[in-house]
């Protein structure tokens, strides 16, 4: 997936002290999956929601005594835009890979109740990553499959729909699990 050409940018500047507002702002920006273009300049692909999300962060910055601005911009070359999209995709890929590793660890836990709790947490984490994923890397599908596989151990059969996207699959045979494969 390539960029559409238009980006919404946030310029911001916060006093170094107190540090609490700075970390709060940076946590929000991280959660939104912004790409850092330079110091105090971050961006997201432009859209009604991304623009609003950054506008609220700008508000938070000014409430905390800093300065902020929102800009709509187009990268001057496709190559420049490509760098942004690749940076974002790579950041998400790293997150998806960490999630897959976490599901592998969780699948070693023998207690079904504990695993169910882990499935819930991992699903929430997966969704959080997907919400800030604008240029999905291949790792996205692996992560979805890994979380689903974890959920299937030992699943009871539920109602199925064919060719589902969020597939609810019947319980897998122990032999499949032993093979160590995720679908």
């Amino acid at each position, binding site marked *: 997936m390539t960029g559409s050409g238009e980006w919404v940018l946030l310029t911001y500047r916060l006093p170094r002290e107190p540090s609490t507002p700075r970390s709060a702002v940076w946590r929000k920006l991280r959660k939104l999956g912004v790409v850092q273009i330079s110091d105090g300049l971050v961006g997201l692909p432009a859209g*009604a929601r991304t623009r*609003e999300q950054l506008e*609220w962060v700008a508000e938070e910055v000014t409430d905390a005594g800093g300065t902020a601005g929102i800009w709509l911009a187009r990268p001057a070359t496709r190559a420049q835009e490509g760098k942004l999209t690749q940076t974002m995709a790579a950041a998400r890929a790293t997150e998806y890979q960490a999630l897959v590793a976490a599901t592998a660890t969780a699948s070693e836990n023998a207690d079904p109740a504990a695993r169910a709790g882990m499935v819930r947490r991992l699903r929430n984490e997966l969704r959080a990553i997907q*919400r800030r994923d604008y240029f999905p890397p291949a790792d996205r599908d692996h992560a979805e499959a890994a979380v689903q596989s974890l959920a299937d151990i030992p699943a009871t059969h539920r109602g199925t729909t064919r060719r589902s996207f969020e597939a609810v699959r019947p319980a897998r045979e122990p032999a499949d699990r032993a093979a160590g494969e995720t679908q």
Partner: protein
Amino acid sequence: MRWATRQRIHIDRAACAWLIRRHIDHDAEFVFIADPADVPADATAFDIPGAELSHHAGDCSFETILRRYDLDDPVLWRIAAIVHEADLDDQRYDAPEAPGLDVVLRGLSITRGDQEILRLSGPVFDGIYEYCRRALLLGREPS
């Protein structure tokens, strides 16, 4: 009275408009603006950065309006939890209904304009109110 908010409304603004019309100003008229500078002088702004009736202290605009107008109906606060999670998604509340409601509003905004979204979503929130009221009375999800 006139009330102004930004164009391309999503769940917080749709919910606020319903709340305003139902519980604050039955004759409310809504104006959608592109730029905060376009808010008419006689209109009360909501869900616009910088306005009083918008996001403050981690609240979404729906919650802010409840606080500013002293609306302490627990059913409205149950709805606030759903709207908050749909809009801000920060796990402040446990609101499993949030994604579905959010997605319906997103779908409406794909094909409909803002006034139409208000017209169509009003009954949805009326229903959600009834649903939440029943759930609170029963202490569980109504069946």
